[in-house]
């Protein structure tokens, strides 16, 4: 059918034109020599001012802390909207088949392992690659795997909501504490410490811990709610 082919051709032309536009723009960029001076300034400044060995963490939490707070609120809004769309956490599916022994034992074995890895990645976010967001996702995996292995287990939405709310409040409270001590909002407190040691960079590890717990609780609630959503409409 010529009309159907035409309808396919239009979007393809659009995508190709978009790619061409981007290619032209990129061709004007000096690759390998970033023209931005902000990064250079931060590299010279971060170790002395913030005290975090991982400069990405310094940017995320110290230089752009309020931006990260906005990001957390976007994630919260998305999770809340998804919860709103999916409806109240209903009853577990009655007909769900009980998991076998291997699945349940494997999930139970995996749980502490994932918990340790997640917390390690969160707490070392200012020293090594990683941080609250990445570790939070691993924490969420730790809590979702047992639910997937044993669908009959009752969900704990109320406890998750408490963790999420307290973590978010802790993030904001740390920022307000900086305000109370005559600094900018979310400025790192408590001194820089020794560069590269676990207790360093002031409040940055605490902020990342709050981020990690919040992200983990949010994602866990979201995924558990999605597994609860059945094919039938809960009228």
């Amino acid at each position, binding site marked *: 059918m010529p009309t159907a082919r035409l309808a*396919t051709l239009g*979007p*393809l032309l*659009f*995508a*190709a034109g*978009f*790619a061409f536009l*981007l*290619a032209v723009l*990129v061709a004007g*960029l000096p*690759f*390998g*020599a*970033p023209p*931005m001076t*902000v*990064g*250079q300034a*931060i*590299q010279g400044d*971060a170790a002395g001012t913030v005290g975090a*060995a*991982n*400069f*990405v963490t*310094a*940017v*995320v939490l110290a230089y*752009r802390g309020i*931006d*990260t707070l906005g*990001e957390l609120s*976007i*994630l919260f*809004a*998305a*999770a809340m*909207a*998804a*919860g709103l*769309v*999916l409806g109240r956490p209903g009853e577990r599916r009655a007909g769900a088949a009980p998991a076998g022994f291997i699945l349940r034992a494997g999930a139970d074995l995996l749980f502490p392992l994932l918990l340790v890895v997640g917390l390690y990645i969160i707490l070392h976010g200012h*020293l*090594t*690659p990683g941080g609250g*967001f990445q570790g939070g996702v691993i924490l969420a995996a730790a809590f979702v795997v047992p639910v997937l292995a044993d669908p009959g287990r009752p969900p704990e939405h109320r406890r998750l909501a408490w963790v999420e709310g307290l973590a978010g409040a802790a993030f904001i409270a740390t920022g307000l504490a900086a305000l109370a001590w005559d600094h900018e909002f979310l400025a790192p407190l408590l001194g820089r410490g020794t*560069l*590269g040691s676990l207790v360093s960079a002031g409040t940055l590890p605490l902020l990342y811990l709050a981020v990690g717990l919040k*992200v983990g609780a949010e*994602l866990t609630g*979201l995924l558990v709610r*999605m597994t609860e*959503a*059945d*094919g*039938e*409409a*809960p009228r």
Partner: protein
Amino acid sequence: MNDATTLTLYLGAIGLLAIGIGGLVLARHLFRVVMALAIAEAGANLLLVLTGFRWDAVAPILTGADRAPMVDPVPQALVLTAIVIGVGVQALALALAIRLRQAYGTLDLRLIRARMAAEIDGAAGLAPAGSRDRPAGERPLPPPQPAALPGETRP
């Protein structure tokens, strides 16, 4: 060799973006639309990270006393933000898709559109829109009746 590397990296990023956008406008299955969105996001993030790249530089993490040149940490922090927000967007989109499937029993966008239109028309008390098989409104003529044979009585 450097030119080839540059070309490959940029082609990869732009190609991912183009594939994602093409899928976004072409796909008829709602789950594929969400996947196309994820692919386009990956391309955009890769493009953003590439802008901070430097030859002969290390990751922006201090490992010792020596200060080797580092890549720009700002685009990496931006991409970290973008990835997290992308996860939120995908979760919301999938939640909407789950509800659509619960309501209409399919994820095919054309079927969903047709069923949604029929539902809205039904709720408004309108007749279903006309098609070749089922024209709208009454037929202009009553269906023809066979002529009565002489001597036959009809009820």
